[in-house]
């Protein structure tokens, strides 16, 4: 091989390695920038008032996002009521029962649902819940978030259950334990950590959703006292403040963004750390 050609190949090899490395670092830059700016602009505004006070009337400075934070938790609770049973038990069906063809179809449908834009979910629940109820409500918000969670939780639950070695199922059945008890008290119990992980990730995911809440929960400048009333949520509040012309509201939006971002980041990171522990112990 001629030395010139060889040098060219070596050069190309090294430069491509450098290029891909650069791309990888470039990809992470936005993350760093976002965290930096959110921390910088939001840190000073996150104070006790932020967590405990309601928004002040337009034009007045101060106030907080207490109702939005409470609202987000309420919505997550409602969403979990709908999403967790459907998702987990559906995942159990995919993993333990069913036929090849039916399960393939269900999985495909779940994947399709995962790809439906969040705003479309909002429109559907608007027509389904808001119109009959003649108004925006926490119910509608909880329902739309719950529906969005179902395919997510279903797939992660199925994945985790499939990882449970068959030997445990066989051992339980060989003891004369009925199949449903085997699934419930042996298989699910073994995979419980993974199932909870999936639920937490799904919750963190829908906690940050704004679009579906735009015309379901709608938002509220006060506390929500009845589930049939509109309810505030952190992402919605951030959006409203962000597009407003008021400087003070922008400041509060940064604070809200910081709180939301930290919440989502902490859930995601701790989940990864926990699952890594699981693998380490196994090997």
């Amino acid at each position, binding site marked *: 091989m001629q030395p010139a050609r060889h040098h060219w190949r070596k050069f190309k090899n090294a430069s*491509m390695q450098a290029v891909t490395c650069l791309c990888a670092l470039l990809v992470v830059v936005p993350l760093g920038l976002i965290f930096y700016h959110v921390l910088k602009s939001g840190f000073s505004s996150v104070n006790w008032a932020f967590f405990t006070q309601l928004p002040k009337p337009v034009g007045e400075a101060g106030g907080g996002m207490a109702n939005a934070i409470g609202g987000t938790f309420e919505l997550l609770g409602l969403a979990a009521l709908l999403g967790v049973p459907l998702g987990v038990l559906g995942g159990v069906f995919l993993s333990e029962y069913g036929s090849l063809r039916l399960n393939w179809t269900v999985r495909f449908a779940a994947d399709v649902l995962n790809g439906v834009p969040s705003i479309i979910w909002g429109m559907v629940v608007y027509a389904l819940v808001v119109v009959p109820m003649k108004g925006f409500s926490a119910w509608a918000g909880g329902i739309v978030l719950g529906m969005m969670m179902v395919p997510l939780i279903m797939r992660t639950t199925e994945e985790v259950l499939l990882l449970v070695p068959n030997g445990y199922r066989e051992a339980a059945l060989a003891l004369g334990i009925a199949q449903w008890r085997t699934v419930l008290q042996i298989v699910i119990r073994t995979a419980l950590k993974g199932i909870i992980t999936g639920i937490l990730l799904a919750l963190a995911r829908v906690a940050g959703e704004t679009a579906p809440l735009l015309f379901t929960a709608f938002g509220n400048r006060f506390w929500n006292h009845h589930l049939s009333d509109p309810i505030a949520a952190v992402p919605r509040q951030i959006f409203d403040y962000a597009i407003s012309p008021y400087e003070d509201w922008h400041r509060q939006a940064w604070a809200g963004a910081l709180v939301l971002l930290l919440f989502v980041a902490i859930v995601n990171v701790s989940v990864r750390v926990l699952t890594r522990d699981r693998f380490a112990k196994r090997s």
Partner: protein
Amino acid sequence: MDGQLVSSHPLRRASGNLARRAVGDRVFQWLTLVMAVSVFVLIILIGYELAHGSHLALRKFGWRFLTSSNWDPVNEQYGALPFIFGTLVSSGLALAIAVPLSIATAVYLTEIAPHWLRQVLTLFIELLAAVPSVILGFWGMYIMVPFLSANVFPHLQKLLGFLPLFRGPSYGPCMLSGGIILAIMVVPIITSVSREILRSVPGLQREAAFALGATRWEVTRIAVLSYAKKGLFGAVILGLGRALGETMAVTMVIGNTPQIGASLLSPGYTMASAIANEFTEATTDVYLSALFELGLVLLGVTVLVNALAQLLLKTFAGRSVKPQN
């Protein structure tokens, strides 16, 4: 003497605990089936509500809905072309930016990076995927767009202003900003799916190329990338599906002006943004129905694109990849 055991311990169904157990099996299986089938119910609900809601507009406008660019609620004229245009262009831009970056990153992570760096970078990319869209939009609106409009767009206009793509007045919130924000959102998913695809390429392929004396990059190019072409394409299409449906982040940086123009530096409007901004303002039934029809178009496009992506990924790797985050 022999027969005593036979009568004393019947294996037959007994009442009480045993019958309960058989029922338990059936009930539990039926319960999980019903829960699993809920996905079909959800799909039907979505399809039905959108079709039902857009019925009015479908009847009134027909195909004109898709071909007219006159979106004029005051005069009850609804042509969705600007939104379709905006969605396609912004998503196309996003892919143009994100695909090379993502695939290069995926290659780096699977073939080149040292082990410890792999885990760290993967964590960061997963974190980026988890950032809520409204926060990204907020950051884009107040940090990225002012920066670009002050430092980047003027230079782009100076250098490339002869191209129709960069001609005309430049605004901060514009199609290009929308494309960039979408690219940031779409990079994590294309990267992670591509990573899985590249990882599933059998080691034998690489070994054969190495044995022929190829450099690391040549191995990657010949044995890995071309083998994984189909799967990588599927990853890209998956990213496209995500970009098409994205609402909040785009709304905050794209300018929200329904117009069709050649310049990337002028504002645009996507289908999702239009729905988000105008839904609660829709005062008449026709207006609302037009927005529902917009949603129907968006749903149709997104579902088709996602289905295509799943098909590509399934037939490549033999397993389906769930679009997480």
